[in-house]
């Protein structure tokens, strides 16, 4: 069964799934998207696969926020996140015939993760070398001194992430924000599980040390 989006505002509605589906298809998609019922979601996917635009719109509003959160953290750029966010749903709409009716959420996250990782690879932001020959490097996209100053809008934590190696950062974000296990991350990044574990171990300790320094320096209360 697909995971519900990670948002508390969804309401669990108990009832006949077919009846609820037919009902919510006539509502404002944004309101309809707040109904949390796996069987209804399965119906919506079924309808969307047959070309029902309203069903897909409900799925869009249901998943757009968790997808956005994940992308923003991973690519650290609003502009890029916006493009990838849109592309995720376009690809989903075009490839709906490939998804299981009850596996829409994880499938969508996978599309999104692959798009983001492709972007990072293309822009040379992410390159996996054999661990541990990787030195931490500063990534200007994550700093407040860049032209977009986007990191400042996000938070200090994003800035702290900029100070650890991009490989470690990617693994940590995929684990903490996207909710993937180390095994799943290894598949996504096409590296070994032990490599992912090593990056996460090193990166997390670095992040903790940087955060501690910021606390001592008064940047964090």
């Amino acid at each position, binding site marked *: 069964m697909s995971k519900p989006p*990670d948002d508390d505002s969804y*309401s669990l*509605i108990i*009832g*006949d799934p*077919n*009846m609820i589906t*037919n*009902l*919510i*298809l006539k*509502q404002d998609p944004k*309101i309809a998207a707040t109904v949390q019922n796996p069987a209804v979601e399965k119906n919506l996917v079924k*309808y969307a696969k*047959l*070309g*029902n*635009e*309203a069903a*897909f*719109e409900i799925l*869009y509003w249901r998943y*757009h*926020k968790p997808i*956005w*959160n994940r992308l*923003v*953290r991973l690519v650290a750029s*609003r502009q890029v996140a*916006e493009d990838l*966010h*849109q592309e995720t*749903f*376009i690809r989903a*709409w*075009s490839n709906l015939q490939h998804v299981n009716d009850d596996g829409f959420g994880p499938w969508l996250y996978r599309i999104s993760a692959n798009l983001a990782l492709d972007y990072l690879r293309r822009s040379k932001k992410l390159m996996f070398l054999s661990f541990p020959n990787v030195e931490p490097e500063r990534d200007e996209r994550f700093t407040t001194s860049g032209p977009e100053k986007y990191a400042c*809008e996000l*938070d200090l*934590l994003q800035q702290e*992430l900029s100070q650890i190696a991009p490989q470690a950062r990617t693994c*940590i*974000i995929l*684990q*903490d*924000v996207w909710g993937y*296990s*180390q*095994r799943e991350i290894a598949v996504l990044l096409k590296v070994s599980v032990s490599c992912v*574990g*090593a990056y*996460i*171990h090193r990166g*997390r*300790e670095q992040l*903790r040390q940087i*955060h*501690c*320094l910021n*606390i*001592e320096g008064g940047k964090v209360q």
Partner: protein
Amino acid sequence: MNGKLFPCSEWARQLTVLHEEDLSHSDFVALQAHLDSCPTCNTIRGEYLALADALAQDVSYDLPAEIPPKLQHRLQKKSEYMEIPIEDTEKENSWERVVNGFVTSEFDETLYREVHFFLGIQKPFEEDHRPHT
């Protein structure tokens, strides 16, 4: 948080694991036993989890408010030649007519119908125009 604390070297890697599936059951049990006996590792584990929680927090304040135009265009394009497969549309409409007179929201409507169904009234919302025999 205390940057001067360091985990026991043999447990350092396991402390960073978030998902139970990344550890075997025996490793997980051993980690729990170590955390119970080592306050330093326990504290550091707590700090890792706190940082992970902070990272996972909502950053959707500048989320796009509408469906992106390119996606909207694709949806409309495909819908032009696809039929909407909603079953029992007439039944649904007749039910709505009756129900709308009594309740205000779609969730109330759902509940209202469910309650009737539960009470054994199979088709409480359909108007029966057949003459009585």
